[in-house]
């Protein structure tokens, strides 16, 4: 009997052992998967930061920024809030914000910035005027009409002024490095402007 009991005990020991090992393996697999997925999120979450240009920069904390776009059935530009890891440098910050504005079109929203538009460069003068040099898509992609033109210009101006009320006081839009009189033939944008 004692031999049988020993066998049973040793079997129970083996079963419990196998169970414990399985649990440990499962936990390890789950933890591995979680850590892997976290790595993926952290790789995708922040916008492409120019690390090479600023190798000494620390990863900035995310900040909330309002991007002004149009609801599909709306009549006015409305702000949608996004989180961006913004740089301290004003020029870089404008580039990040405008890039987010150009790319952002959630469901049920219309972006008044024509598709394909790229912000080539940003220049800021001593009078706190930002010169935003866009690609020709900004004017070529206009659908015509004073309202559409106003919405495009207002979306850019409102987004930048809202994010940097102290740093930027006026904005002039350039196309491919040149001053332009208008985007679609109605609104005069030949000078720096504000609301």
């Amino acid at each position, binding site marked *: 009997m004692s031999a049988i009991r020993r066998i049973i005990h040793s079997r129970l020991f083996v079963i419990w052992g196998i169970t414990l090992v399985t649990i440990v393996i499962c936990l390890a697999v789950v933890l591995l998967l979680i850590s892997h997925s976290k790595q993926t999120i952290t790789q995708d979450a922040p916008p492409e930061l120019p690390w090479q240009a600023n190798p000494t920069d620390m990863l900035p904390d995310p900040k909330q920024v309002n991007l002004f776009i*149009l*609801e*599909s*059935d*709306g*009549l006015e530009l409305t702000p949608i809030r996004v989180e961006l890891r913004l740089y301290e440098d004003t020029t870089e910050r404008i580039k990040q914000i405008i890039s987010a504005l150009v790319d952002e079109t959630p469901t049920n929203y*219309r*972006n*008044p910035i024509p598709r394909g538009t790229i912000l080539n460069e940003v220049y800021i003068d001593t*009078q706190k*005027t930002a010169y935003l040099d866009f690609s020709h898509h900004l004017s070529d992609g206009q*659908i*015509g*009409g*004073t*309202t*559409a033109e*106003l*919405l495009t*210009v*207002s979306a850019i*101006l409102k987004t930048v002024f809202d994010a940097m009320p102290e740093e930027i006081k*006026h904005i002039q839009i350039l196309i491919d490095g040149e001053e332009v*009189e*208008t985007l679609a*033939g*109605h*609104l*005069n*944008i*030949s*000078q*720096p*402007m*504000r*609301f």
Partner: protein
Amino acid sequence: MWLNTFNSFPLFLFIIIFVSVTHGFAQGETVRFVDGEGEILDEVEFILHENVVYLPFNTIKSVFDSEMTHSYYTPLKQLTINTKGKVIKVEMGKSSVIIDSSRQTETLTNPPRFIQGQPMLPIIFFQMVLPKLDDVTVIYKPELQRIRILKKSNLDSGVSDTNRTWTIIIDPGHGGEDDLGCKSQNGIFEKDIVLKVAKEMQMQCKNLGFAVQLTRDQDVKKSREQRFQYANRHQGQLYISLHCNASFSQNHKGIRLYLNNPYGMLRFRTAPIPIFGKKSLNIRTQANFLNQSKDFASVLQKELNFLSEDSIVLSEFPIITLNDVYMPAVLVELGYLSNTDDVARLSNPEHITELAQAVVHAIQLYSSKVDQSTKTNKDSEEDSSNINER
């Protein structure tokens, strides 16, 4: 007792719903009367009888003549109205209207009727009879249920008392193969609509004695500078640029007016130059005419409000379309080609005529206002010089 209450509850509920619904319908159905200035004279509830709008006879009192009197002779079902020194007799169920003093008879397409315990007049009565009683034009807009009573004496003939002929420059936007303007989903181009409206305006203006110049009278491309030069060379007194609008939202609709103001809702950085300052040069720019442009735009706004469901929006922005014309100037966006309702309206020749008519009325009202003030100034100058001579 409780059982009875429960039994009668559905009936009670039905009565409440029926009364509220019918009451709601009655309240919503009104005709709005507006005067020549676009001010509301009265909102009158109407009754729809066999698809004809009928109004109470005493509407005449609230919208046309506050001193109107009437009598109703029941056996003959005859209504007699005394207004503006004339006696009008109508019989219920009969289409003829007798204007007594002149023995003139008008035949209406729909007869007056006795409805809901009172004599009611069909809408055509107001359109046909009121102009026979006074110096007025009556315009009815059935889709908006609006009637406008416009005094003819307010409208200038184009040649003023000061013997000045008004020259109106109409600028149909875009044109040619390269510059189509905006386009509707069903393939209507802005350049074609604005040219139609411009030509209609030209015809109506010429009939009234105004001199009219179009910056383009066919489908050709004209640069901004060419348009400005043309307008300035012809020394117009008004510049009206016609365009169609478009938006990223399909819900944007209606007519919009814009004035060129570099310090409007969007402001240029450069400080305004004191154009009329004593030490500065008297440079001619659009900014010199901003106040006159505002005056004309507000007259135009009231005229166009009559055609529009919602109030017409007037905005001031740096508008390049009006930048270098040296006269009062307004940009009229006739409707949105991105909105299906507006496209349907702009495709309707009747609406094109109405639009042109509204703008031409505004020109008449504005020009007579300006001429009147010029004449008054001239008279007061003459009076003061006469006093000095004495």
